[in-house]
């Protein structure tokens, strides 16, 4: 079972073999959760949203087209997060801007988290998202480009620039 790629499994799921979704859940739910947690800073919310991502995977399984599975998966996760914050910040934020809550506003609470976590929070949400997707799940630039709607080349440059910024923040706090 391990040998099968995500894409092959997902195609079988789309053909009606629902049990295989468990394999995909096992492989990816922690990464989806971690992504949502790093972006929202809210464990409960992240769990609910992760749940919702996999519900949508069940519901929309037949709409899966032959593309990279992680791109599809994280596109759903990303939209979930976006919808959530658009709904909750309707009256405060411009709707078209991705505006994520910064994790833990007061400095005292920040001590509970790791230094890396704090350094990540000093990046803009857009930058943080790219880093989280690229570093934790090791999503390649081609797939990252599909998720955020850009080109691999542009992303490669962008990610290395953000990493430089993050490196400075991280080492200063050390």
């Amino acid at each position, binding site marked *: 079972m391990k040998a099968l790629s995500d894409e092959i499994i997902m195609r079988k799921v789309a053909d*009606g073999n*629902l*049990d295989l*979704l*468990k394999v995909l*859940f096992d492989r990816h*739910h*922690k990464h989806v*959760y*971690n992504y949502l*947690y790093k972006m929202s800073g809210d*464990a409960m919310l*992240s*769990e609910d949203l*992760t*749940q919702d991502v*996999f*519900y949508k995977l*069940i519901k929309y399984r037949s709409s899966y087209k032959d593309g990279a599975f992680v791109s599809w998966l994280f596109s759903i996760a990303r939209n979930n997060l976006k919808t959530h914050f658009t709904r909750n910040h309707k009256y405060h934020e411009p709707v078209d801007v991705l505006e994520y809550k910064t994790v833990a506003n007061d400095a005292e609470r920040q001590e509970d988290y*790791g*230094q*890396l*976590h704090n350094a990540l929070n000093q990046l803009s949400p857009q930058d943080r998202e790219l880093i989280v997707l690229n*570093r*934790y799940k*090791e999503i390649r630039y081609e797939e990252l480009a599909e998720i955020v709607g850009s080109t691999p080349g542009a992303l*490669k*440059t962008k*990610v*290395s*620039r953000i*990493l*430089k910024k*993050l*490196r400075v923040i*991280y*080492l200063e706090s050390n």
Partner: protein
Amino acid sequence: MKSEKDNFISSQLPAYLDGQLSPKEKQQVEDHLAISESCRKELEELRTLFTAFKEEQVQVPSDKLRNQFNQVLEQEKLSQSKVVLLENNKRSWASNLLKIAASVALLIAAFQTGRILEMEKSNQDVAAILEESLQIKQTAMLSLMENQSASKRIQGVSYIEEFPNPDEAIVEALAKRLLHDDNDIVRLNAFEALSGFASSEMVKSIFIETLEKEKNPSIQIGIIQTLVKNQEKKAVAPMQRLLEQEDTQPFVKNEIKLALPKII
């Protein structure tokens, strides 16, 4: 000041650490690292950062997540199979009836096969258990018969009731009791146990051997009666010897006199 080359190499460093560069690009980066102090420093700092990513404790979602996911998946599977069923119904009732009949037949056949197999298996199991318990009893019997206490030896001898077909080891152990035990009652018990199998040649020869040396009159009489009942001709000689011996009890002699004519 940083050169343009520095900036370019610096942008390649993440991919270099991830091992994603082509051999040519890799060589290019390494050549530059050899001459640029600032890029070496940058690489080290980046490495520290990457290590931090690797070592960070990642938050793990609770089990609730998996449980709920499995629940929803089961529900979806149920509704999926319902849909399939409705479509079939529309297509043809007759073929469905046939399918149902076939599946019922299959179910019954499978059930019967399972039952027969199960029965065979349990019979084998019971036989194995019986065999095992007999062996345990035999071991207990043999070891009890070697016990120092006479009552334990009697207990061991009386275990013979558990063996409808005792094997040689048991018969030999009983014979040993009958021939060599110091205690009269143990010998008497051993005799009674063996008399149940007096038709066997082995038991008969044991009895004859006993008759030659046994002094206890009740055992003597018992053996004489058993041997006469089995028409054992070889018993005649030891019986006559008993008649001639002076220390033989008179009523034993009497018994022998009555018994001898019966053996033809």
